[in-house]
């Protein structure tokens, strides 16, 4: 296997992540308090405004998947009574805990001082932190974010979330940190968030160019890394996205396509929209199935689970808690199925896609439910064909490379035939 091609932004992101895990590994001895929380609907600015350290178990799980550690963790959790059917992020996290809670970079992870259960768009989060609460015996702050069943944000929903921030979340953050809520500090962090979000949206929308300078799924998951995890609201995130944007600007100016792990993509032959999370345990093999055929993902929904910014939302320092509420309510998996279909239709049209591909993940109910209906509806509305593949998040037993490759190749051949007869 050849060495992976890395750009400056990738190296910066790697350093950010590594530094964060390093800080976490010393948190206990340095007396720093740690808040475990989830990616969709995370309150990173609020957590950091109390000088608390965020730790995101989903990020640990996907990192463990990419580093080929997740299989053993999942087996360990199953040995302790967890079913083979349930979310593999949860089992990976529980298995990691049972095996000594060593993080994906090989450094120990601290215990949580607070479990901040933001419960956005995925019911399993609730069970996940109930399980962790049993293990750690620490307080939980629960933020219940109502599902957007009407496909739009209602004022009473926003107020409901704000009320909980006041009555439940902020008091517990004050208690754990020993600090008072500082709204000015929060506003400054939200200002930084909005700057980074502007650049992220610019990067994702750069895929409207032909050829696309980015892969908005396989590359996209790296691009959303800092803003979806522990860095939103920090100067580090602002710097990362400014650097990333400069790189993409240069690529557009040079008429270049995306950079893949094996180097520059030579020719863009197919433009795809992808729905669903990627497989992490065979991430590079999975990506290669696309770039070997010249298939570029120009838009994806997975890169919207930690925040849907390309529909106009930005964190707003003038309305701090209101915008945190809107952010939580607007994450992709918190949207109704019709709203998700509308978004996919928009992507197919605006990004001039040749096809829609759904990667249905066995253990992620919040994503997978309704995906076949979504596929048929997009085909009906746009005339663009869809295809369906199945894999898993971090369970290596559920990545069948031959089957997936076969399906992708068949789909791309079908796109060729449609062109030939058009």
């Amino acid at each position, binding site marked *: 296997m050849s060495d992976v091609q890395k750009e400056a932004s990738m190296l910066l992101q790697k350093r950010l992540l590594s530094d964060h895990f390093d800080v976490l590994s010393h948190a206990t001895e340095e007396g720093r308090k740690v808040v475990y929380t989830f990616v969709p609907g995370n309150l990173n600015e609020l957590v950091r405004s109390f000088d608390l350290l965020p730790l995101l178990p989903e990020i640990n799980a996907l990192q463990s998947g990419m580093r080929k550690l997740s299989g053993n963790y999942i087996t360990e959790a199953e040995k*302790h*009574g967890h079913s083979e059917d349930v979310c593999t992020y949860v089992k990976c996290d529980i298995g990691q805990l049972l095996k000594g809670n060593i993080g994906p970079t090989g450094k120990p992870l601290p215990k949580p001082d607070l479990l901040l259960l933001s419960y956005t768009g995925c019911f399993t989060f609730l069970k996940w932190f109930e399980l962790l609460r049993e293990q750690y015996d620490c307080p939980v702050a629960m933020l219940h974010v109502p599902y957007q069943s009407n496909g739009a944000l209602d004022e009473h929903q926003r107020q409901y979330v704000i009320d909980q921030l006041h009555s439940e979340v902020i008091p517990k953050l004050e208690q754990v940190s020993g600090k008072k809520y500082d709204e000015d500090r929060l506003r400054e962090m939200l200002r930084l968030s909005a700057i980074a979000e502007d650049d992220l949206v610019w990067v994702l929308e750069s895929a409207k160019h032909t050829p696309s300078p980015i892969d908005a799924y396989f590359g996209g998951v790296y691009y959303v890394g800092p803003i979806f995890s522990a860095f939103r609201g920090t100067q580090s995130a602002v710097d990362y996205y400014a650097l990333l944007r400069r790189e993409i600007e240069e690529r557009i100016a040079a008429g270049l396509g995306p950079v893949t792990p094996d180097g520059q993509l030579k020719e863009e032959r197919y433009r795809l929209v992808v729905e669903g999370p990627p497989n992490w345990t065979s991430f590079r093999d999975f990506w290669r199935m696309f770039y070997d055929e010249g298939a570029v993902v120009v838009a994806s929904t997975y890169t919207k689970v930690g925040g849907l910014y390309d529909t106009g939302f930005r964190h707003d320092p003038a309305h701090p808690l209101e915008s945190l509420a809107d952010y939580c309510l607007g994450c992709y998996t918190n949207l109704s199925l019709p709203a998700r279909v509308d978004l996919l239709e928009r992507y197919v049209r605006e990004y001039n896609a040749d096809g829609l591909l759904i990667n249905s993940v066995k253990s992620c*109910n919040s994503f997978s439910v309704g995906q076949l209906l979504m596929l048929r509806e997009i085909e009906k509305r746009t005339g663009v064909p869809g295809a369906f593949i199945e894999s898993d998040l971090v369970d290596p037993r559920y990545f069948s490379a031959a089957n997936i490759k076969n399906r992708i190749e068949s789909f791309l051949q079908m796109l060729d035939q449609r062109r030939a007869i058009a």
Partner: protein
Amino acid sequence: MRDDFARLAGRDEIDDDDLRDSIAIYNDNRAVIRDLYRERSRAPWLFPLSEVFLFLRAGNVMPPEEHTMLLRDYIRAARQDESRREQDHSRVVLAGMFCEQPPHGLLVTLERAGCDVVDDDLLVGLRWLTRDVDVEGDPLENLVEAYLFASASSASRYAPDGDRAKWLIDSYTRNNAEGVILCAPSFCDPALLDQPMLVSRLDREGVPHTEFKYAEDTGQFAVIREQAGTFSDSIRLWSTP
């Protein structure tokens, strides 16, 4: 919701008195279901699960007034049926079936394997509210009050006090049960993720238990029969009286 329901019913509005009347009707229905569960716990051989399940399930499609009468008739008839005799079965609580309902054959299988089910979380929606809803005052406030403060514990609800297994241990004790069967549908994250927490607590309390999964449309019960039968036998043979 009130406006939506009025539209569905083809009416201009649903007023407070309509709601109070409906609350009273459902209070009656919940009361007779509570009676049925009490009676079954007292004499499970009179009210086998495979029958109780069907009578309860009818409540999801019948007008509640008629369902209440049906259950009253069933309780009366079962009590008077002299062919129903106590058998040497184990008294178990069945948990994990709060959402996707099991095939009827699975419930029959549990009975044939020697399990008398004395409590369960089947069709829990019919018993979601654990007390009568007040018929005086603002009906919507009364409903909200009941939903928030007098509703069933379930894997699909957050347990703020941290005691996930409290309802199960309470049921085991209250119903004088001898064991617990955790039976969850495949791919049901709430039930399956709950299981390790329930198992750990049952172990700490010394409560005999067994676990298995089912698929909604399965017709294969041989393995479940073996497992439930062995469990029932082990309770009768080796549990401390």
